């Protein structure tokens, strides 16, 4: 009766206000992200950033990742699939975003492995063994040594490089750039400087397809 109508209308109104506010907020946020990315194009990638793919490739994916992040691990094969689907047209650069406690050491290990030309091999080994050394968002940096034996790194040199302030500076720089670009979660992707409208594999695929279309 009357009370039921009043209640129903109130409930529907509240849900409608919530939904509208969510839509407005999300579209504002996405516009702001585009703007921030656009203003900071020059710091999307640094000289020290490891890059895979042909230098002439016109579609450039920049990925902020944390080796201890499970979603980064899940996305890694997808990114390689995207590259394989458009040979020579896509390149990928990695930025370090060690947001988990303890993953900073692991990121330094990656940066040191890059000096030996083994960044991608080391990253693959770390991702493959991730459930062992970083289960439940609780990375154990001391354990990673057990899982990189197959990569063929010079471990003594690796340890020395990891202690080098230059490596520390690289990680600081990447973290500072992440802050400027408003990257708060991993993985975060920019395709030719454009952020994903919302998070998801399909959105990344779509963004890459759009850039492939406009560049080739």
């Amino acid at each position, binding site marked *: 009766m009357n*009370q039921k109508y009043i209640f129903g209308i109130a409930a529907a109104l509240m849900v409608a*206000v*919530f939904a509208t506010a969510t839509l407005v907020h999300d579209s504002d946020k996405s516009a702001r992200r585009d703007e921030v990315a656009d203003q900071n194009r020059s710091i999307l990638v640094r000289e020290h950033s490891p890059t895979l793919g042909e230098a002439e490739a016109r579609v450039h994916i920049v990925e902020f990742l944390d080796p201890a992040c499970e979603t980064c691990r899940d996305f890694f094969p997808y990114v390689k699939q995207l590259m394989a689907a458009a040979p020579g047209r896509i390149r990928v650069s990695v930025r370090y975003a060690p947001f988990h406690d303890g993953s900073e050491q692991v990121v330094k290990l990656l940066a040191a492995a890059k000096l030996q030309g083994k960044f991608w091999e080391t990253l693959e080994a770390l991702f493959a063994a991730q459930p062992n050394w970083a289960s439940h968002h609780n990375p154990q940096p001391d354990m990673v040594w057990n899982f990189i034996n197959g990569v063929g790194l010079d471990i003594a040199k690796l340890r020395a490089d990891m202690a080098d302030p230059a490596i520390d500076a690289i990680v600081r720089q990447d973290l500072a750039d992440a802050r400027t670009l408003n990257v708060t979660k991993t993985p975060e992707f920019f395709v030719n400087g454009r952020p994903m409208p919302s998070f998801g594999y399909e959105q990344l695929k779509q963004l890459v397809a759009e850039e492939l279309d406009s560049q080739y």
Partner: protein
Amino acid sequence: MKAEPVASSQAGWTPLFGAWLVAASSMLGALFLGEVMELPPCVLCWWQRIAMFPLVLILPAGMFPLDRSVIRYALPLTLAGWLVAVFHVLLVAGVIPERIQPCARGVSCKEIQIEWFGFLTIPMLSLIAFTLIAGLLLFAQHRMSR
């Protein structure tokens, strides 16, 4: 002794509805801050959510049909949430020293994420909401026991 009790007990419906409005807007507000604006809730916020969210379902269950015992079920939740909110507000205000704050890890409960008009912080909104709900429930109780 016939229609009278029904009429007087129906008088409690409006304050119950008011309490539900406050609880439901608090819940949607908390969900908006947490899920849409992505402000991470601290430990004390979770405790207040645990007290607030069930009210959104319990109150209508006692409004259709009107059942005055819903107040007995809703009031303990409200008071528990109210106490946590008071603790939280005092913590933010610095009345309770940081030394005994329960959330050292994760998001600090002391951190002020939103401040409207210079005094309306999230814990303050929560305290206002719990106070309103408690007041409305007591008022409904008073109206229905007449």
